[in-house]
Protein backbone atom coordinates (compact mmCIF):
# COMPACT_ATOMS: atom_id res chain seq x y z
CA UNK A 1 0.00 0.00 0.00
CA UNK A 2 1.34 3.38 -0.96
CA UNK A 3 -0.38 6.72 -0.36
CA UNK A 4 -1.42 8.17 -3.72
CA UNK A 5 -2.25 11.75 -4.56
CA UNK A 6 -5.93 10.83 -4.75
CA UNK A 7 -5.77 9.33 -1.23
CA UNK A 8 -4.27 12.53 0.15
CA UNK A 9 -6.95 14.71 -1.46
CA UNK A 10 -9.62 12.38 -0.08
CA UNK A 11 -8.16 12.80 3.40
CA UNK A 12 -8.07 16.59 2.96
CA UNK A 13 -11.75 16.55 2.01
CA UNK A 14 -12.54 14.51 5.11
CA UNK A 15 -10.67 17.02 7.29
CA UNK A 16 -12.66 19.82 5.62
CA UNK A 17 -15.84 18.02 6.67
CA UNK A 18 -14.48 17.92 10.24
CA UNK A 19 -13.92 21.68 10.06
CA UNK A 20 -17.60 22.07 9.24
CA UNK A 21 -18.62 20.08 12.28
CA UNK A 22 -16.79 22.35 14.71
CA UNK A 23 -17.41 25.98 15.57
CA UNK A 24 -14.64 28.47 16.28
CA UNK A 25 -15.51 31.65 18.17
CA UNK A 26 -12.23 33.55 18.39
CA UNK A 27 -11.71 35.90 15.40
CA UNK A 28 -7.89 35.67 15.70
CA UNK A 29 -7.99 31.85 15.61
CA UNK A 30 -10.31 32.04 12.60
CA UNK A 31 -8.09 34.53 10.80
CA UNK A 32 -4.88 32.62 11.52
CA UNK A 33 -6.49 29.32 10.53
CA UNK A 34 -7.85 30.72 7.32
CA UNK A 35 -4.51 32.30 6.45
CA UNK A 36 -2.83 28.90 6.87
CA UNK A 37 -5.46 27.23 4.66
CA UNK A 38 -5.09 29.85 1.95
CA UNK A 39 -1.28 29.67 2.01
CA UNK A 40 -1.35 25.88 1.73
CA UNK A 41 -3.90 26.09 -1.08
CA UNK A 42 -1.85 28.67 -2.95
CA UNK A 43 1.24 26.54 -2.58
CA UNK A 44 -0.59 23.41 -3.70
CA UNK A 45 -2.18 25.10 -6.73
CA UNK A 46 1.25 26.35 -7.82
CA UNK A 47 2.60 22.78 -7.88
CA UNK A 48 -0.36 22.07 -10.17
CA UNK A 49 0.79 24.79 -12.57
CA UNK A 50 -1.93 27.23 -11.52
CA UNK A 51 -2.07 30.25 -9.26
CA UNK A 52 -4.23 32.19 -6.86
CA UNK A 53 -3.96 35.97 -7.17
CA UNK A 54 -5.69 37.10 -3.96
CA UNK A 55 -2.92 38.12 -1.53
CA UNK A 56 -2.54 36.58 1.92
CA UNK A 57 -4.41 37.98 4.87
CA UNK A 58 -2.43 40.29 7.15
CA UNK A 59 -2.72 39.48 10.87
CA UNK A 60 -1.41 41.81 13.55
CA UNK A 61 -1.95 39.61 16.60
CA UNK A 62 0.34 36.71 17.64
CA UNK A 63 -0.64 33.33 16.14
CA UNK A 64 -2.96 31.43 18.49
CA UNK A 65 -2.98 27.70 19.17
CA UNK A 66 -3.73 25.03 16.60
CA UNK A 67 -7.29 24.74 15.33
CA UNK A 68 -9.23 22.48 12.99
CA UNK A 69 -8.51 24.97 10.19
CA UNK A 70 -4.80 24.47 10.67
CA UNK A 71 -5.32 20.71 10.42
CA UNK A 72 -7.00 21.38 7.08
CA UNK A 73 -4.04 23.48 5.96
CA UNK A 74 -1.76 20.59 6.88
CA UNK A 75 -3.86 18.09 4.91
CA UNK A 76 -3.84 20.35 1.84
CA UNK A 77 -0.09 20.80 2.30
CA UNK A 78 0.48 17.02 2.36
CA UNK A 79 -0.83 16.77 -1.21
CA UNK A 80 1.48 19.60 -2.26
CA UNK A 81 4.40 17.77 -0.63
CA UNK A 82 3.68 14.67 -2.66
CA UNK A 83 3.73 16.76 -5.85
CA UNK A 84 6.96 18.42 -4.71
CA UNK A 85 8.88 15.19 -4.10
CA UNK A 86 7.59 13.40 -7.17
CA UNK A 87 10.16 11.63 -9.25
CA UNK A 88 10.87 13.13 -12.67
CA UNK A 89 10.83 9.85 -14.55
CA UNK A 90 7.65 8.50 -13.03
CA UNK A 91 5.79 11.75 -13.68
CA UNK A 92 6.92 12.17 -17.26
CA UNK A 93 3.72 10.36 -18.21
CA UNK A 94 1.58 13.03 -16.54
CA UNK A 95 1.11 15.16 -19.60
CA UNK A 96 -2.66 15.44 -19.53
CA UNK A 97 -3.45 19.08 -18.73
CA UNK A 98 -7.04 18.19 -17.94
CA UNK A 99 -5.84 16.07 -15.00
CA UNK A 100 -4.16 19.13 -13.54
CA UNK A 101 -7.30 21.24 -14.07
CA UNK A 102 -9.31 18.59 -12.23
CA UNK A 103 -6.82 18.52 -9.35
CA UNK A 104 -6.82 22.32 -9.05
CA UNK A 105 -10.62 22.28 -8.95
CA UNK A 106 -10.60 19.63 -6.23
CA UNK A 107 -8.10 21.54 -4.09
CA UNK A 108 -10.08 24.77 -4.53
CA UNK A 109 -13.33 23.09 -3.57
CA UNK A 110 -11.71 21.68 -0.41
CA UNK A 111 -10.45 25.18 0.47
CA UNK A 112 -13.95 26.52 -0.28
CA UNK A 113 -15.43 24.17 2.30
CA UNK A 114 -13.04 25.70 4.81
CA UNK A 115 -13.89 29.24 3.68
CA UNK A 116 -17.61 28.59 4.08
CA UNK A 117 -17.07 27.27 7.60
CA UNK A 118 -15.10 30.41 8.46
CA UNK A 119 -17.88 32.63 7.06
CA UNK A 120 -20.48 30.71 9.07
CA UNK A 121 -18.48 31.10 12.30
CA UNK A 122 -17.81 34.77 11.60
CA UNK A 123 -21.49 35.64 11.22
CA UNK A 124 -22.56 35.34 14.91
CA UNK A 125 -19.49 37.36 15.99
CA UNK A 126 -21.38 40.46 14.81
CA UNK A 127 -18.55 42.58 13.55
CA UNK A 128 -16.17 41.21 16.18
CA UNK A 129 -13.62 44.01 15.94
CA UNK A 130 -11.05 45.05 13.38
CA UNK A 131 -9.60 41.57 12.73
CA UNK A 132 -13.01 40.02 12.01
CA UNK A 133 -13.90 42.87 9.64
CA UNK A 134 -10.63 42.44 7.78
CA UNK A 135 -11.16 38.68 7.52
CA UNK A 136 -14.67 39.22 6.20
CA UNK A 137 -13.46 41.59 3.51
CA UNK A 138 -10.68 39.18 2.56
CA UNK A 139 -13.06 36.24 2.27
CA UNK A 140 -15.25 38.34 -0.01
CA UNK A 141 -12.32 38.71 -2.39
CA UNK A 142 -11.00 35.16 -2.27
CA UNK A 143 -14.31 33.27 -2.40
CA UNK A 144 -15.09 34.22 -5.98
CA UNK A 145 -11.61 33.23 -7.10
CA UNK A 146 -11.84 29.85 -5.36
CA UNK A 147 -15.32 29.26 -6.77
CA UNK A 148 -14.13 29.98 -10.27
CA UNK A 149 -11.25 27.56 -9.82
CA UNK A 150 -13.50 24.90 -8.29
CA UNK A 151 -15.82 25.04 -11.30
CA UNK A 152 -13.04 24.94 -13.87
CA UNK A 153 -13.15 21.13 -14.14
CA UNK A 154 -15.59 20.65 -16.99
CA UNK A 155 -14.46 17.11 -17.79
CA UNK A 156 -15.67 15.76 -14.43
CA UNK A 157 -13.91 12.47 -14.84
CA UNK A 158 -11.61 12.30 -11.83
CA UNK A 159 -7.89 12.93 -11.64
CA UNK A 160 -6.75 10.42 -14.24
CA UNK A 161 -3.11 9.34 -14.01
CA UNK A 162 -2.34 12.17 -11.60
CA UNK A 163 -4.61 10.56 -9.00
CA UNK A 164 -2.44 7.44 -8.97
CA UNK A 165 0.79 9.35 -8.39
CA UNK A 166 2.65 7.79 -5.47
CA UNK A 167 5.81 8.98 -3.81
CA UNK A 168 8.33 7.14 -1.68
CA UNK A 169 7.95 3.47 -0.88
CA UNK A 170 5.26 1.25 0.54
CA UNK A 171 3.61 2.41 3.75
CA UNK A 172 5.54 2.45 7.00
CA UNK A 173 5.68 -1.02 8.39
CA UNK A 174 2.95 -2.09 10.75
CA UNK A 175 3.38 -5.85 10.34
CA UNK A 176 5.65 -8.42 8.73
CA UNK A 177 3.80 -8.29 5.40
CA UNK A 178 4.35 -4.54 5.13
CA UNK A 179 8.00 -5.06 6.13
CA UNK A 180 8.34 -7.56 3.30
CA UNK A 181 6.95 -4.96 0.87
CA UNK A 182 9.41 -2.38 2.18
CA UNK A 183 12.32 -4.82 1.92
CA UNK A 184 11.49 -5.44 -1.76
CA UNK A 185 11.37 -1.69 -2.41
CA UNK A 186 14.75 -1.35 -0.66
CA UNK A 187 16.17 -4.13 -2.85
CA UNK A 188 14.97 -2.34 -5.97
CA UNK A 189 16.42 0.98 -4.81
CA UNK A 190 19.78 -0.61 -4.04
CA UNK A 191 19.99 -1.91 -7.61
CA UNK A 192 18.85 1.40 -9.05
CA UNK A 193 21.61 3.16 -7.16
CA UNK A 194 24.33 0.98 -8.76
CA UNK A 195 25.78 2.32 -12.00
CA UNK A 196 25.14 -0.37 -14.67
CA UNK A 197 28.56 -0.05 -16.30
CA UNK A 198 30.34 -0.89 -13.05
CA UNK A 199 28.74 -4.35 -12.90
CA UNK A 200 30.94 -7.40 -13.40
CA UNK A 201 29.85 -10.78 -14.66
CA UNK A 202 29.65 -12.11 -11.12
CA UNK A 203 27.31 -9.24 -10.14
CA UNK A 204 25.08 -10.07 -13.09
CA UNK A 205 25.07 -13.72 -12.09
CA UNK A 206 24.13 -12.70 -8.59
CA UNK A 207 21.27 -10.60 -9.98
CA UNK A 208 19.96 -13.59 -11.90
CA UNK A 209 20.10 -15.74 -8.76
CA UNK A 210 18.30 -13.00 -6.80
CA UNK A 211 15.61 -12.65 -9.45
CA UNK A 212 15.04 -16.39 -9.64
CA UNK A 213 14.72 -16.59 -5.88
CA UNK A 214 12.31 -13.62 -5.82
CA UNK A 215 10.30 -15.39 -8.54
CA UNK A 216 10.28 -18.54 -6.39
CA UNK A 217 9.03 -16.55 -3.39
CA UNK A 218 6.24 -15.07 -5.50
CA UNK A 219 5.38 -18.54 -6.87
CA UNK A 220 5.16 -19.94 -3.36
CA UNK A 221 2.98 -17.09 -2.02
CA UNK A 222 0.67 -17.31 -5.04
CA UNK A 223 0.39 -21.08 -4.73
CA UNK A 224 -0.54 -20.83 -1.04
CA UNK A 225 -3.01 -18.02 -1.73
CA UNK A 226 -4.68 -20.28 -4.29
CA UNK A 227 -4.86 -23.15 -1.79
CA UNK A 228 -6.26 -20.85 0.88
CA UNK A 229 -8.67 -19.35 -1.65
CA UNK A 230 -10.86 -22.46 -1.63
CA UNK A 231 -11.29 -22.17 2.12
CA UNK A 232 -11.66 -18.38 2.21
CA UNK A 233 -14.06 -18.38 -0.76
CA UNK A 234 -12.19 -16.19 -3.25
CA UNK A 235 -14.31 -15.13 -6.21
CA UNK A 236 -13.59 -16.81 -9.57
CA UNK A 237 -11.87 -13.69 -10.93
CA UNK A 238 -9.30 -13.63 -8.13
CA UNK A 239 -8.63 -17.33 -8.63
CA UNK A 240 -8.24 -16.86 -12.35
CA UNK A 241 -5.78 -14.02 -11.84
CA UNK A 242 -3.81 -16.05 -9.30
CA UNK A 243 -3.54 -18.87 -11.82
CA UNK A 244 -2.44 -16.41 -14.49
CA UNK A 245 0.22 -15.12 -12.10
CA UNK A 246 1.42 -18.65 -11.46
CA UNK A 247 1.63 -19.25 -15.22
CA UNK A 248 3.61 -16.08 -15.85
CA UNK A 249 5.98 -16.93 -12.99
CA UNK A 250 6.50 -20.42 -14.40
CA UNK A 251 7.46 -18.92 -17.78
CA UNK A 252 9.73 -16.44 -16.05
CA UNK A 253 11.53 -19.21 -14.18
CA UNK A 254 12.02 -21.26 -17.35
CA UNK A 255 13.65 -18.30 -19.09
CA UNK A 256 15.56 -17.28 -16.00
CA UNK A 257 17.06 -20.76 -15.72
CA UNK A 258 18.20 -20.31 -19.33
CA UNK A 259 19.87 -17.05 -18.28
CA UNK A 260 21.62 -18.81 -15.39
CA UNK A 261 22.94 -21.50 -17.75
CA UNK A 262 24.02 -18.86 -20.27
CA UNK A 263 26.13 -17.18 -17.63
CA UNK A 264 27.82 -20.49 -17.07
CA UNK A 265 28.34 -21.57 -20.66
CA UNK A 266 28.96 -18.28 -22.38
CA UNK A 267 30.83 -15.98 -20.12
CA UNK A 268 33.87 -16.25 -18.00
CA UNK A 269 33.94 -15.04 -14.47
CA UNK A 270 36.63 -13.01 -12.87
CA UNK A 271 37.15 -14.67 -9.54
CA UNK A 272 35.97 -12.93 -6.42
CA UNK A 273 32.81 -12.38 -4.50
CA UNK A 274 30.04 -10.08 -5.55
CA UNK A 275 29.20 -7.45 -2.95
CA UNK A 276 26.87 -5.03 -4.69
CA UNK A 277 24.38 -3.11 -2.51
CA UNK A 278 21.64 -5.04 -4.30
CA UNK A 279 22.98 -8.36 -3.05
CA UNK A 280 23.17 -7.08 0.52
CA UNK A 281 19.62 -5.73 0.27
CA UNK A 282 18.47 -9.09 -1.08
CA UNK A 283 19.68 -10.79 2.10
CA UNK A 284 17.28 -8.49 4.01
CA UNK A 285 14.47 -9.33 1.62
CA UNK A 286 15.21 -13.02 2.04
CA UNK A 287 15.18 -12.72 5.84
CA UNK A 288 11.81 -10.92 5.71
CA UNK A 289 10.35 -13.57 3.44
CA UNK A 290 11.49 -16.29 5.83
CA UNK A 291 9.89 -14.39 8.71
CA UNK A 292 6.57 -14.23 6.86
CA UNK A 293 6.49 -17.65 5.25
CA UNK A 294 8.75 -19.96 7.24
CA UNK A 295 9.19 -21.37 10.67
CA UNK A 296 12.75 -22.62 11.10
CA UNK A 297 13.32 -25.00 8.21
CA UNK A 298 9.66 -25.48 7.35
CA UNK A 299 7.49 -23.44 5.04
CA UNK A 300 4.19 -22.55 6.68
CA UNK A 301 1.13 -24.47 5.53
CA UNK A 302 -1.43 -22.46 3.49
CA UNK A 303 -3.77 -22.36 6.50
CA UNK A 304 -1.06 -20.84 8.70
CA UNK A 305 0.31 -18.48 6.08
CA UNK A 306 -3.11 -17.20 5.02
CA UNK A 307 -5.39 -17.67 8.05
CA UNK A 308 -7.98 -15.08 7.03
CA UNK A 309 -9.05 -12.75 4.29
CA UNK A 310 -7.30 -9.77 5.86
CA UNK A 311 -3.95 -11.55 5.70
CA UNK A 312 -4.72 -12.58 2.12
CA UNK A 313 -5.17 -8.91 1.17
CA UNK A 314 -1.90 -7.97 2.87
CA UNK A 315 -0.09 -10.77 1.07
CA UNK A 316 -1.52 -9.58 -2.24
CA UNK A 317 -0.12 -6.12 -1.48
CA UNK A 318 3.30 -7.58 -0.68
CA UNK A 319 3.14 -9.76 -3.79
CA UNK A 320 2.38 -6.69 -5.90
CA UNK A 321 5.42 -4.85 -4.52
CA UNK A 322 7.61 -7.93 -4.95
CA UNK A 323 6.62 -8.36 -8.60
CA UNK A 324 7.00 -4.65 -9.31
CA UNK A 325 10.51 -4.54 -7.83
CA UNK A 326 11.52 -7.78 -9.53
CA UNK A 327 10.40 -6.42 -12.88
CA UNK A 328 12.41 -3.23 -12.33
CA UNK A 329 15.52 -5.19 -11.33
CA UNK A 330 15.14 -7.48 -14.36
CA UNK A 331 14.95 -4.43 -16.65
CA UNK A 332 18.00 -2.91 -14.99
CA UNK A 333 19.90 -6.14 -15.59
CA UNK A 334 18.77 -6.26 -19.19
CA UNK A 335 19.90 -2.67 -19.80
CA UNK A 336 23.20 -3.27 -18.00
CA UNK A 337 23.95 -6.34 -20.14
CA UNK A 338 23.11 -4.44 -23.34
CA UNK A 339 25.41 -1.58 -22.29
CA UNK A 340 28.24 -3.93 -21.32
CA UNK A 341 28.00 -5.81 -24.63
CA UNK A 342 28.10 -2.57 -26.58
CA UNK A 343 31.13 -1.46 -24.61
CA UNK A 344 32.82 -4.83 -25.24
CA UNK A 345 33.14 -5.68 -21.58
CA UNK A 346 31.75 -9.22 -21.59
CA UNK A 347 33.70 -12.34 -22.46
CA UNK A 348 33.00 -15.24 -24.81
CA UNK A 349 34.99 -18.45 -25.41
CA UNK A 350 37.62 -18.00 -28.13
CA UNK A 351 36.18 -20.90 -30.11
CA UNK A 352 32.89 -19.08 -30.42
CA UNK A 353 34.51 -16.03 -31.99
CA UNK A 354 36.70 -18.11 -34.30
CA UNK A 355 33.59 -19.83 -35.59
CA UNK A 356 31.98 -16.47 -36.41
CA UNK A 357 35.03 -14.66 -37.78
CA UNK A 358 37.16 -17.41 -39.36
CA UNK A 359 38.96 -14.93 -41.65
CA UNK A 360 40.41 -13.02 -38.70
CA UNK A 361 41.98 -16.03 -37.05
CA UNK A 362 44.75 -18.27 -38.38
CA UNK A 363 43.41 -21.73 -39.17
CA UNK A 364 43.33 -24.13 -36.27
CA UNK A 365 43.31 -21.45 -33.55
CA UNK A 366 39.93 -22.49 -32.22
CA UNK A 367 40.97 -26.06 -31.55
CA UNK A 368 44.34 -25.08 -30.18
CA UNK A 369 42.84 -23.15 -27.23
CA UNK A 370 41.22 -24.98 -24.42
CA UNK A 371 37.50 -24.24 -24.11
CA UNK A 372 38.17 -22.14 -21.03
CA UNK A 373 40.03 -19.42 -22.94
CA UNK A 374 37.95 -16.28 -23.13
CA UNK A 375 38.07 -13.08 -25.16
CA UNK A 376 36.10 -9.87 -25.08
CA UNK A 377 33.94 -8.90 -28.02
CA UNK A 378 31.27 -6.41 -29.03
CA UNK A 379 29.60 -8.83 -31.45
CA UNK A 380 25.98 -8.99 -30.26
CA UNK A 381 25.34 -12.33 -32.00
CA UNK A 382 27.76 -14.04 -29.58
CA UNK A 383 25.33 -13.16 -26.79
CA UNK A 384 22.02 -13.72 -28.52
CA UNK A 385 21.04 -16.69 -26.36
CA UNK A 386 21.66 -14.68 -23.20
CA UNK A 387 19.94 -11.51 -24.38
CA UNK A 388 16.94 -13.42 -25.74
CA UNK A 389 16.46 -15.22 -22.44
CA UNK A 390 16.91 -11.99 -20.46
CA UNK A 391 14.33 -10.20 -22.60
CA UNK A 392 11.83 -13.05 -22.36
CA UNK A 393 12.29 -13.32 -18.58
CA UNK A 394 11.74 -9.57 -18.11
CA UNK A 395 8.69 -9.74 -20.36
CA UNK A 396 7.10 -12.50 -18.30
CA UNK A 397 7.84 -10.56 -15.12
CA UNK A 398 6.08 -7.53 -16.58
CA UNK A 399 3.08 -9.73 -17.28
CA UNK A 400 3.23 -11.12 -13.73
CA UNK A 401 3.53 -7.61 -12.31
CA UNK A 402 0.47 -6.42 -14.26
CA UNK A 403 -1.57 -9.33 -12.88
CA UNK A 404 -0.31 -8.72 -9.33
CA UNK A 405 -1.29 -5.07 -9.65
CA UNK A 406 -4.79 -6.02 -10.69
CA UNK A 407 -5.02 -8.36 -7.72
CA UNK A 408 -3.87 -5.62 -5.33
CA UNK A 409 -5.97 -2.95 -7.06
CA UNK A 410 -3.00 -0.70 -7.84
CA UNK A 411 -3.12 -0.75 -11.63
CA UNK A 412 -3.42 3.05 -11.81
CA UNK A 413 -0.56 3.80 -9.44
CA UNK A 414 2.41 5.68 -10.87
CA UNK A 415 5.37 4.70 -8.73
CA UNK A 416 8.65 6.52 -8.55
CA UNK A 417 11.64 4.65 -9.91
CA UNK A 418 15.23 5.15 -10.86
CA UNK A 419 17.76 7.73 -9.87
CA UNK A 420 16.45 11.22 -10.36
CA UNK A 421 18.56 12.78 -13.06
CA UNK A 422 16.52 15.96 -13.20
CA UNK A 423 13.97 16.89 -10.57
CA UNK A 424 10.75 18.36 -11.92
CA UNK A 425 10.89 22.13 -12.25
CA UNK A 426 9.21 23.74 -9.25
CA UNK A 427 6.58 26.38 -9.86
CA UNK A 428 7.95 29.86 -10.34
CA UNK A 429 7.36 31.31 -6.91
CA UNK A 430 10.11 33.92 -6.95
CA UNK A 431 8.36 36.31 -9.31
CA UNK A 432 5.15 36.05 -7.36
CA UNK A 433 6.63 36.53 -3.97
CA UNK A 434 7.15 40.28 -3.86
CA UNK A 435 3.68 41.04 -5.15
CA UNK A 436 1.77 38.53 -3.06
CA UNK A 437 3.53 38.68 0.26
CA UNK A 438 2.96 42.22 1.36
CA UNK A 439 3.80 41.28 4.93
CA UNK A 440 7.11 39.78 3.95
CA UNK A 441 8.55 43.00 2.57
CA UNK A 442 11.72 43.95 4.40
CA UNK A 443 12.16 40.51 5.96
CA UNK A 444 15.15 38.48 4.92
CA UNK A 445 13.67 35.24 3.56
CA UNK A 446 16.63 33.19 4.74
CA UNK A 447 16.03 34.07 8.37
CA UNK A 448 12.30 34.58 8.63
CA UNK A 449 11.42 30.89 8.30
CA UNK A 450 8.05 31.92 6.95
CA UNK A 451 8.77 31.57 3.27
CA UNK A 452 7.46 29.01 0.83
CA UNK A 453 9.65 25.98 0.94
CA UNK A 454 8.78 24.59 -2.48
CA UNK A 455 11.46 25.74 -4.87
CA UNK A 456 14.47 25.34 -2.60
CA UNK A 457 14.13 21.66 -1.88
Amino acid at each position, binding site marked *: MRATYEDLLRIARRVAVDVHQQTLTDPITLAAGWRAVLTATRHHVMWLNGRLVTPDLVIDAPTPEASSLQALAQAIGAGADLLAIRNARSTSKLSDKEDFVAARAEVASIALMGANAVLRDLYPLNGGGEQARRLHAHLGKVLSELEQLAQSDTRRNGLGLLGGLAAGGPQLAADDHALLARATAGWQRAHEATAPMTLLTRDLRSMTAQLRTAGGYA*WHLTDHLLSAGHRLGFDPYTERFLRALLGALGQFEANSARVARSWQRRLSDINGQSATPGEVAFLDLSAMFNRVARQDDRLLQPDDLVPDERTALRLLDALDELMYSAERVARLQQHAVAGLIMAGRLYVPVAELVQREPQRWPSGVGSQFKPKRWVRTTRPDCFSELTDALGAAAGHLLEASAVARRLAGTTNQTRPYGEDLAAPAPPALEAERSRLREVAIGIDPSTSGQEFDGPDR
Partner: protein
Amino acid sequence: MSNPGADARSRVDELVRQAEAIVEALEAKAADGRWAMTAFSRYRVCELLDIPPYGPYGGDVDADPAALLDEAARYVDELDVPIEDLSWRLAVGDALRSAAGDIRAVRDARDV
Protein backbone atom coordinates in the same frame (compact mmCIF):
# COMPACT_ATOMS: atom_id res chain seq x y z
CA MET B 1 52.18 -37.03 2.60
CA SER B 2 48.63 -35.85 2.69
CA ASN B 3 47.68 -32.37 3.80
CA PRO B 4 44.63 -32.55 6.14
CA GLY B 5 43.59 -28.93 5.35
CA ALA B 6 43.61 -29.51 1.61
CA ASP B 7 41.75 -32.81 2.11
CA ALA B 8 38.98 -31.11 4.06
CA ARG B 9 38.67 -28.36 1.45
CA SER B 10 38.45 -30.85 -1.42
CA ARG B 11 35.91 -32.87 0.55
CA VAL B 12 33.78 -29.71 0.96
CA ASP B 13 34.02 -29.01 -2.77
CA GLU B 14 33.05 -32.56 -3.61
CA LEU B 15 30.02 -32.49 -1.30
CA VAL B 16 28.84 -29.14 -2.69
CA ARG B 17 29.28 -30.28 -6.30
CA GLN B 18 27.24 -33.38 -5.56
CA ALA B 19 24.47 -31.46 -3.77
CA GLU B 20 24.35 -28.84 -6.52
CA ALA B 21 24.06 -31.52 -9.24
CA ILE B 22 21.21 -33.22 -7.33
CA VAL B 23 19.25 -29.99 -6.86
CA GLU B 24 19.82 -28.96 -10.49
CA ALA B 25 18.38 -32.30 -11.60
CA LEU B 26 15.42 -31.86 -9.23
CA GLU B 27 14.62 -28.30 -10.35
CA ALA B 28 14.92 -29.26 -14.02
CA LYS B 29 12.24 -31.94 -13.80
CA ALA B 30 9.95 -30.50 -11.11
CA ALA B 31 6.92 -28.48 -12.13
CA ASP B 32 7.09 -26.90 -8.70
CA GLY B 33 8.28 -23.27 -9.00
CA ARG B 34 9.43 -23.38 -5.40
CA TRP B 35 12.85 -24.79 -6.29
CA ALA B 36 13.76 -21.35 -7.61
CA MET B 37 13.64 -20.18 -3.99
CA THR B 38 16.93 -21.98 -3.41
CA ALA B 39 18.71 -20.23 -6.32
CA PHE B 40 20.28 -17.38 -4.38
CA SER B 41 21.62 -19.38 -1.43
CA ARG B 42 23.05 -21.98 -3.81
CA TYR B 43 24.59 -19.23 -5.90
CA ARG B 44 26.29 -17.85 -2.78
CA VAL B 45 27.74 -21.22 -1.84
CA CYS B 46 29.13 -21.78 -5.35
CA GLU B 47 30.48 -18.23 -5.52
CA LEU B 48 32.26 -18.44 -2.18
CA LEU B 49 33.79 -21.85 -2.94
CA ASP B 50 34.53 -20.92 -6.55
CA ILE B 51 32.57 -23.86 -7.95
CA PRO B 52 31.01 -23.46 -11.40
CA PRO B 53 27.32 -24.40 -11.25
CA TYR B 54 25.53 -26.25 -14.07
CA GLY B 55 28.69 -28.10 -14.95
CA PRO B 56 28.75 -31.80 -15.83
CA TYR B 57 28.78 -34.10 -12.80
CA GLY B 58 29.59 -37.76 -13.08
CA GLY B 59 29.15 -38.85 -9.45
CA ASP B 60 26.30 -40.30 -7.44
CA VAL B 61 23.12 -38.21 -7.57
CA ASP B 62 21.07 -40.34 -5.21
CA ALA B 63 21.45 -38.60 -1.84
CA ASP B 64 19.87 -35.96 0.33
CA PRO B 65 21.35 -32.62 -0.85
CA ALA B 66 20.50 -30.81 2.41
CA ALA B 67 22.37 -33.46 4.45
CA LEU B 68 25.36 -33.17 2.08
CA LEU B 69 25.47 -29.40 2.57
CA ASP B 70 25.19 -29.78 6.35
CA GLU B 71 28.10 -32.19 6.27
CA ALA B 72 30.07 -29.71 4.15
CA ALA B 73 29.31 -26.99 6.71
CA ARG B 74 30.76 -29.17 9.47
CA TYR B 75 33.97 -29.67 7.46
CA VAL B 76 34.16 -25.90 6.84
CA ASP B 77 33.89 -25.20 10.57
CA GLU B 78 36.94 -27.39 11.12
CA LEU B 79 38.99 -25.90 8.29
CA ASP B 80 42.25 -24.43 9.47
CA VAL B 81 42.43 -21.05 7.73
CA PRO B 82 44.78 -18.05 8.04
CA ILE B 83 43.43 -15.15 10.05
CA GLU B 84 42.49 -13.05 6.99
CA ASP B 85 40.20 -15.88 5.79
CA LEU B 86 38.22 -16.18 9.02
CA SER B 87 35.36 -14.04 7.69
CA TRP B 88 35.35 -16.14 4.51
CA ARG B 89 35.01 -19.30 6.61
CA LEU B 90 32.10 -17.78 8.54
CA ALA B 91 30.43 -16.68 5.31
CA VAL B 92 30.80 -20.13 3.73
CA GLY B 93 29.43 -21.86 6.84
CA ASP B 94 26.47 -19.49 6.91
CA ALA B 95 25.82 -19.85 3.17
CA LEU B 96 25.96 -23.66 3.38
CA ARG B 97 23.52 -23.81 6.28
CA SER B 98 21.05 -21.39 4.73
CA ALA B 99 21.20 -23.29 1.43
CA ALA B 100 20.57 -26.55 3.32
CA GLY B 101 17.64 -24.88 5.13
CA ASP B 102 16.14 -23.59 1.88
CA ILE B 103 16.47 -26.96 0.19
CA ARG B 104 14.90 -28.77 3.15
CA ALA B 105 12.00 -26.28 3.27
CA VAL B 106 11.24 -26.70 -0.43
CA ARG B 107 11.64 -30.49 -0.38
CA ASP B 108 9.26 -30.85 2.57
CA ALA B 109 6.73 -28.47 1.01
CA ARG B 110 6.44 -30.86 -1.93
CA ASP B 111 5.53 -33.71 0.39
CA VAL B 112 2.44 -31.85 1.64
